[in-house]
């Protein structure tokens, strides 16, 4: 019994840390710079495609992973430039990028729908060798995910409190003011989107190596999953300030993966998981509303965007 619960928690912890990268990226775009970037659904498989191709080519898996994250950040630059330079509404920019990236991902993978990494050496092999745990154990997965999550947390926690990082956050709060105070809001949005998509592509590269293959369809559902994590993190932890926001996003991803894993272990058919996601998000969004209703507070009509 305890072993099973321990296994469940360990697995959700690992998944929460990796998907937490996506949640943090989406927190950055959706909540901090106020740029609802749907393009993550394309940059996630893009990261996977890039890392798979490079590893098959014989690149060191660490360098291939970093390259995938960098490639993903270029996707973010493209998405945000559609908005800032060509004045296309943000939601449409994301949709344009999702469609386009489907074809690009196929091209990157040499017109194949998937690439196997089963006979290649990945960062998981490298780390397993390095610390002397046998490859395939959950401890290795957790270690890899933990290292990435901790580095991401500290770097972003520092960056968002620098002069540039502050301007970035302020852009999401009051664009007019930020321009009036001499910071280029378009540049801020481009920087924010590139970081977010870099993180999402990094997650894609890690997941792809963990599962042993890259697939053109592996991005499907990532957007909803990331949003669910952001919304759960917001609802449960109600973060204020940079540090708590970053932690809430990761914790939200953990809670979300825990629900999904438990549901699966309880014997729910995988086809029902999307319904569970839908219910979870609805509940998380409605709780604050009900709380206010009970206190007879006035609740404004919901935003028609995000």
């Amino acid at each position, binding site marked *: 019994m305890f072993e099973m619960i321990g296994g469940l928690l360990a697995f959700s912890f690992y998944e929460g840390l990796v998907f937490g990268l996506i949640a943090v990226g989406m927190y950055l775009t959706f909540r901090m710079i106020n740029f609802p970037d749907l393009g993550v659904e394309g940059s996630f498989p893009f990261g996977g495609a890039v890392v798979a191709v490079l590893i098959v080519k014989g690149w060191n898996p660490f360098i291939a992973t970093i390259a995938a994250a960098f490639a993903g950040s270029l996707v973010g630059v493209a998405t945000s430039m559609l908005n800032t330079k060509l004045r296309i509404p943000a939601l449409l920019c994301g949709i344009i990028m999702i469609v386009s990236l489907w074809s690009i991902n196929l091209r990157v993978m040499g017109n194949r729908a998937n690439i196997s990494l089963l006979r290649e050496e990945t960062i998981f092999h490298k780390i397993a060798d390095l610390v002397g745990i046998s490859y395939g154990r959950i401890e290795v997965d957790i270690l890899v995910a933990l290292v990435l999550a901790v580095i991401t947390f500290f770097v972003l926690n520092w*960056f968002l*409190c*620098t*002069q*540039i*990082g*502050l*301007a970035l*956050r*302020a852009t999401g*709060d*009051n664009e*007019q*003011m*930020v*321009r*009036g*105070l*001499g*910071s*280029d*809001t378009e540049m801020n949005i481009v920087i924010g989107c590139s970081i977010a998509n870099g993180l999402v592509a990094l997650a894609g590269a890690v997941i792809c190596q963990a599962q042993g293959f890259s697939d053109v369809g592996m991005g499907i559902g990532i957007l909803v999953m990331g949003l669910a994590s952001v919304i759960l993190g917001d609802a449960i932890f109600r973060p*204020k300030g940079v540090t708590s926001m970053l932690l809430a996003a990761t914790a939200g991803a953990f809670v979300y993966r825990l629900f999904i894993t438990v549901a699966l272990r309880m014997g729910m058919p995988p086809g029902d998981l999307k319904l569970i996601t839908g219910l979870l998000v609805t509940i998380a969004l409605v709780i604050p509303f009900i709380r206010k209703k009970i206190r007879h507070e006035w609740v404004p009509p919901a935003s028609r965007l995000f």
Partner: protein
Amino acid sequence: MGDTANKNVLQLRDVKKIFSHGTIDEVTALNGINLTVQEQDFISIIGSNGAGKSTMLNVIAGVFPPERGGKVIIDGDDVTNLPEYRHSAYTGRVWQEPQVGTASKMTIEENLAMAYLRGKKRGLKAASNKELRALFREALKQLGLGLEDRLNAPVGTLSGGQRQSLSLVMATISKPAILLLDEHIATLDPKTAQTVLKLSKMIIDKEKMTTMMVTHNMEIALRFGNRLVMMHRGKVIVDIGEERKNTLTINDLVNAFEQASGEKFDDDSVLLSHR
């Protein structure tokens, strides 16, 4: 001061602005403005709705450029076609609505840290630190609103008057060449409006700011500043210096308006408004 006392801080040369060019809705908001602002001028700008006051401030702040041929020169630099975020190295601005000038989800400290870097290059240094916090506290203390003890409060929790006072500090803390006050007390209740107006005067005097203040209220326009500019249909129709301004009454202003514009003065709201 000496030789710098008469330095030209701002020059507008033949500034025109036409909106919805070539359509049925075409509006000439500015119709050839020529204006020179000297160092430490405090200009009150009045005019009825649609006279072009806010459009002129928008051109000075770089929100949009004037039509071709017009020039905006600040501190000797031609800034006509610079984007807004580079104009702001020269101009500090307080808007009509408190929520435009401040970021509500961020703290007072974060707002001031943003404002402090106006016109400076932003890098990867920490946005705030101990010395800056001391500086911010000092700047807030002079407002006498107790904000210096609430550096970590989100600005959204402040009242309109407090936010507008914070906007004032944010507009002046980096000492820009010109301070633009765009009907900055129009949305406040009369008592708060007087407080913010007094604070404005105090900061302008202390920092020796060159200021342009748009107002709807003739009494305030007469009471504050060393120069009065009246606009009508996109033009400057009256420009009065300090000596004459001090002897003027509201009636004189109305007469001056009718003489200069050749129209009857019928904007009751200007006379009745006490804000």
